[in-house]
């Protein structure tokens, strides 16, 4: 049976169709979830896509955390549902306290769109298991508020527990502390990442197809966890 992966659309979501495409290319079935509908429709995993959820004039992701669908998602994530937050989705995850820290204005104050090299630091999360630790990948990055911050204790804890899943290589594009590009929760089911794996899934439109690994990792993890029969 094909895994069903929900992609949440907030009114200002922009990369939701791209996330759905990535799910399909990886072999999953994408299911559209609507922000105002407090129902996850029994999906096996959820992607929070990039964009500007509710305009994000207050703080990125600040209003999204109060969306009807988010209440259900927070409960499900705490119960082990795999959740990937990309860019704005990462911001929503930190605002919802599913992941520690926060994302702040880029240190150079400009929006930046570039092909970004990353090093995978953890392949035990549900979204990174198909990668090798130390593997270098190239995927697009595009954000205005992508600087990852947390207090030193939290940063040390993340490092100590191996919860940094990817780090920026060669250039830190937004002033993130310790070059952190993505993190996971203790359980490894919730992952937030600032660059955009869903924009690196086809040779035609992306710099590489390295991003596909996040989505195939999920499908393998679901099979391995017995959620889905192979």
């Amino acid at each position, binding site marked *: 049976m094909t895994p069903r992966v929900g992609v949440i659309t907030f009114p200002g979501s922009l*990369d939701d*169709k791209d996330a759905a495409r990535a799910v399909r290319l990886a072999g999953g079935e994408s299911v559209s979830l609507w922000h105002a509908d407090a129902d996850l429709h029994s999906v096996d995993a959820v992607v929070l896509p990039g964009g500007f959820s509710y305009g994000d004039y207050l703080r990125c992701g600040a209003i999204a955390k109060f969306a009807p669908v988010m209440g259900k998602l927070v409960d499900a994530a705490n119960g082990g549902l795999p959740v990937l937050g990309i860019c704005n989705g990462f911001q929503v995850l930190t605002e919802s306290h599913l992941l520690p820290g926060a994302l702040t204005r880029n240190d150079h104050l400009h*929006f930046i*769109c*570039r092909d970004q090299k990353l090093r995978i630091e953890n392949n035990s999360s549900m979204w990174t298991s198909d990668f090798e630790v130390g593997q270098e990948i190239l995927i*697009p990055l595009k954000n205005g508020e992508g600087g990852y911050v947390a207090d030193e204790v939290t940063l040390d804890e993340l490092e100590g527990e191996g919860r940094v899943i990817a780090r920026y290589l060669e250039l830190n594009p937004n002033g993130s502390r310790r070059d952190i590009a993505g993190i996971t929760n203790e359980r490894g089911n919730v992952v937030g990442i600032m660059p955009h794996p869903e924009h690196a899934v086809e040779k035609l*439109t*992306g710099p590489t197809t390295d991003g596909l690994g996040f989505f195939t990792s999920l499908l393998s993890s679901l099979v391995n966890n017995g959620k889905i029969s192979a």
Partner: protein
Amino acid sequence: MSIDTVSDATSSPKTAQPFAELGLKKDEYESIREILGRRPTSSELAMYSVMWSEHCSYKSSKVHLRQFGTKVPKNDSMLVGIGENAGVVDIGQGWAVTFKVESHNHPSYVEPYQGAATGIGGIVRDIISMGARPVAVMDPLRFGDPENPDTRRVLTGIVSGIGGYGNCLGLPNIGGEIVFDASYQGNPLVNALCVGTMKHEDIHLAKASGVGNAVILYGARTGGDGIGGVSVLASETFDADGPAKRPSVQVGDPFMEKLLIECTLEVLHAGLVEGIQDLGGAGISCATSELASNGEGGMHVWLDRVLLRDSTLSPEEILMSESQERMCAVVEPGKIDAFMAVCKKWDVEAVVIGEVNNSGRLTVEWHGQEIVNVPPRSVAHDGPVYERPYARPDWMDVRQSSGPDNLVRPKSAAEVKQTWLTMTGTPNLASKSWVTSQYDRYVMGNTVLAQPEDSGMIRVDEKTGLGIAVSTDCNARFAALDPYKGAQLALAESYRNVAVTGAKPLAVTNCLNFGSPEDSAVMWQFEQAVTGLADACLEMGTPVTGGNVSFYNQTGEVAIHPTPVIGVLGVIQDVDRRTPMAWQRDGEIVYVLGATRDELAGSEWAHAIHDHLGGLPPVLDLNAEMTLAEILVAGSRDGLFTAAHDVSEGGIAQSLAEMAMRSGVGARLEVPAGIDAFTFLWSESATRAVVVVSQDCYEKFVALCDAKKFPVTKIGVVDALSKSIELAGVFGESISLDIEELRTISEETLPRLFG
């Protein structure tokens, strides 16, 4: 507040009215009185003044723009012609494309961030009002002297505005231009292009038909934004008055625009809408009069129903307000509830403000009192038409006769190398990535090519690979030397940039940026450019689908260079076949297609090295340009090319440098026989491209060129082991340019100036 009603106007014919302050001439005011048979009410005066402004009525340009309607090439792909919000082109497989470019020059000089942001907002609403989903934007920009401190204010604000607004909409920014020239110092050009796609059955038009149908205003609330902005900002030249006279600027809300896109496409696709119109310049005045004029001719509006952000606005201000992110739809009474439900889903406010009738009049009431009663056509379409005097200015003789022949040229290999390094870093030729990396080019996941490639390319259909390519171009220096030829050269370059990526050019849009039409020399430039463009479009078989005119880009007596920015749309059957600009593979053969003549007038070399502008622009053979495009498209389709790049500003030297910098791979090349290295490298002869052909394909490629009798010259091979461009035959020597050194020079210019 006191309301000036229609009956007041009838009973007090002698009341003095401030028509001149609103930008109306005495005879224009008199003709309004004649149309109405009485003096206008203050609300009617407001409506006529904005709708009869240069920006809305095209009163100075209309007589010349008619050529785009009379010199129409035979072309089967036009679905909707010129005159609608945007023209629509058939690209096959049931798909249609609409694209348009518009100026937001004056507002962007006053308030760069909001001016540029709302420029994107406006053009995007034009595209959605045709029923199309916007799929990409591009921004042709022109700035003054890069070393002037005000250029920094203007450029950084505009770039942030384009990014801040465009990135929030989820539309990839796939190209455009950034050009510096002192002639734009007080008059930067901010043109914004949007392209949208739709199925044929989804095409919608702006007309109010069906008596009894409701007129619904939806989107943002109406506030005091840019009241009189269009007529005041776009029709009067800036003078040295301080900030006190600055008109209120429109402020954009990209999130609301995003909601408006989704909401509008949903109501259109659900069949809930009879007619639709975006609100841009002249706001409600424009939308209601145009809808009524295009439909059955009558409409009644309850103006007090308009949802306001500022409750103190007078009816005149509500009619003129340019608050952004608003649309107007005509909906059958039985579908109003369904329409409102979609608006609610997207958190978009909507209210019925009017009704279509067959009165032949546009009537507006305010709390039960009639304040407007006019024939809608007289407002929307039958505005004044001027036959402005135009004459070729005498100074053109001096300009055209002072050619570049006496400029000092590099005479040795060392000088050529130094010139090459210098040219790579000029603001016009340097890498624009500092700007374009502030724009999202990936969103939607269909961007096949984006800047710095020759054209932006978007996949339209994921299943079949059908795609489109768009480019905008204009070398305004050529237009300054000869506006007729300059406009044609701009078209040729844009046409070539589309073809070089493998797409077949189909249709043209334009944004004609000029000085004051009240200056006979400027008017001559305009007439020449329009005629040149119309003649060339007829010959090349690419119809003009729409466009925009921006006049009064001038400070005092000094006008900008005539800048007819030309956008060309092309179609490619399978985007997998596109030709990128970077060469990659070792041993592949590098050719120059086309002939290089000694043509340096108006070139970037003459401009950057000698600050010289004079002579005659390059010769242009439109038939040869079409043949070149046929070769480029056929070669792409048949897989002959692994890379191709247009030759234009900065000549072959710049093309080669860009192809190498894009991949980091070097090449071993030689200046062909019969031409000196300088002319070969920096001449800007038209109708040329550099193409790279694999060893397997070169016989077929050369045979193709021979069959078309098109000149082709082999200049060397790609060298994958080398990190430099080696060029032999440079005044008897070889030079070597390190690609990393070129890249450093190219990439440091803009951050140094604006970072």
